[in-house]
């Protein structure tokens, strides 16, 4: 069940998007999110939709996997669209039932919102699908390094993030193991009321915390043995370099941004 969630997972590959510099990818993703938000009509929305789907195709990550990852989001998409349908009273009335009115404006906004959320998820999950957690935090560290001037320990924060991301799968596996062990001792995790269920979690979370602390100590000792210190000036094994791919992508994002602004201007706003 927990293992089915693919958002945040990394799928190694060799595509154009995989090869982008992580810094560039972060900036582009941010730009794409902004562009999705500023869309005002179906023409500009169409552009970002094509862009999102095309990015997935370029990344060569199977659409099946992406759709599986979206499963968790479907509920949110459907709920938001439904609320939009019933709350928006603009446009002509399509039909009315009891106190609920469905208008063209409502339907338009509902579709608009659904597509927008869909694009947002596609674009943002593509970032983690195509970038390994370590490269991602590395990129983030480099992007934020100007903050060091303000005495913000960017490198230490980046290391913390790397470690946190690294241990997510370990923790999931561990929860699975502990749950099985306690079930084998007759723990009932699936029935009873809320308080009973909450109580049933104690035998799972206490060992989980104890083990996590133990592991944290071990890791800290191991890091200290290798002379890790947060503030040390480290060189990198893989030096990040912007290539023609990154430049092309930046130019493309800028063109798309201009395009969206023009489309918004000439075709009026739905939202």
């Amino acid at each position: 069940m927990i293992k089915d969630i693919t958002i945040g997972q990394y799928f190694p590959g060799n595509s154009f998007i995989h090869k982008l510099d992580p810094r560039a990818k972060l900036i582009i993703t941010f730009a794409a999110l902004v562009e999705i938000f500023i869309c005002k009509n179906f023409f500009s929305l169409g552009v970002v939709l094509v862009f999102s789907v095309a990015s997935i195709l370029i990344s060569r990550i199977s659409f099946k996997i992406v759709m599986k990852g979206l499963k968790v989001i479907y509920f949110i998409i459907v709920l938001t669209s439904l609320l939009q349908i019933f709350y928006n009273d603009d446009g002509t009335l399509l039909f009315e039932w009891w106190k609920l009115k469905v208008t063209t404006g409502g339907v338009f906004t509902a579709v608009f919102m659904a597509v927008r959320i869909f694009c947002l998820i596609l674009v943002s999950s593509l970032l983690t699908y195509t970038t390994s957690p370590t490269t991602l935090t590395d990129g983030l560290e480099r992007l934020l390094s100007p903050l060091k001037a303000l005495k913000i320990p960017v490198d230490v924060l980046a290391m913390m993030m790397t470690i946190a991301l690294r241990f997510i799968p370990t923790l999931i596996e561990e929860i699975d193991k502990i749950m099985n062990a306690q079930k084998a001792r007759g723990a009932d995790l699936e029935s009873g009321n809320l308080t009973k269920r909450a109580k049933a979690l104690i035998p799972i979370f206490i060992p989980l915390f104890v083990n996590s602390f133990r592991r944290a100590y071990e890791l800290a000792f191991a890091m200290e043995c290798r002379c890790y210190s947060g503030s040390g000036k480290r060189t990198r094994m893989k030096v990040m370099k912007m290539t023609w791919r990154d430049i092309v992508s930046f130019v493309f994002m800028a063109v798309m941004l201009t395009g969206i602004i023009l489309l918004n201007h000439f075709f009026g706003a739905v939202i």
Partner: protein
Amino acid sequence: MTILEAKNITYKYGVGTPFQITALDDISFTVEKGDMLAIIGHTGSGKSTLIQHFNALLKPASGQILLYGKDINESRDSARYARFKIGLCFQYPEYQLFESTVYKDISFGPMNMGLDKNEIDKRVRTAAEFVGLTDAMLQKSPFDLSGGEKRRAAIAGVMAMEPEILIMDEPAAGLDPRGRRKILELIKAYREKTGRTVIIVSHSMEDVASVAEKILVLNHGKAAMYGTVDEVFSRAEELREMGLNIPQITKIFSELNKYGFNLSKSTYTVKQAEKELLEYFHKGAPGV
């Protein structure tokens, strides 16, 4: 009398993804009441997956597990029944301790069975005595015990449920030689005293040789061999091909036999070897 039967069990991990693996492939075997069975196999051969089936923690993709002739996956009640009748002690069980005292932790299982207070107390004390935990230790926090003591406390937690079949996954893994010996002796004593069925999973042939009577060998999710210790260890060549081995002492004896000695082929422990060699010398064997 047959207590547990596995019928054509097949299990696959990651069905529908590119990472699909057949963990268990058409496994069938029976366990008789009172058996002392060892399941051995290379890492990734499906040992741990198999034993989780006996406890209804995993459901086979096809096939059945019969406890006293009844399918344990028939209903939720039958699965729960199986969990109380078949005690499963996972690898590194000390990582599951959670209560404030050892006593409370051991009583977690019996409590879930809905037993009354006196019965729970009796069972906790019997189990604790069995694994060699003193009354003073019972009142301690489980996190204050040493590694070997924690392991024994966790095992007591499963024993206190008094399961008809006790399954232990690598009970001696990660312990020092003395802790190892203690755990293995404890398992032997448990079996002798209660007469209950015990299944251990291990990849140490020495451990297996010292406790087991029957062996099931798994290889790539298939049941490769099933028989008595003699039967299985006599097929040393095949075992080696599966990345397994026979006990060192058995290997030494077979090497000695190549040099013209006439020693027993079914020597699996150092104790047996000692006896065998002494007898051999007493007889005034040729070549000595």
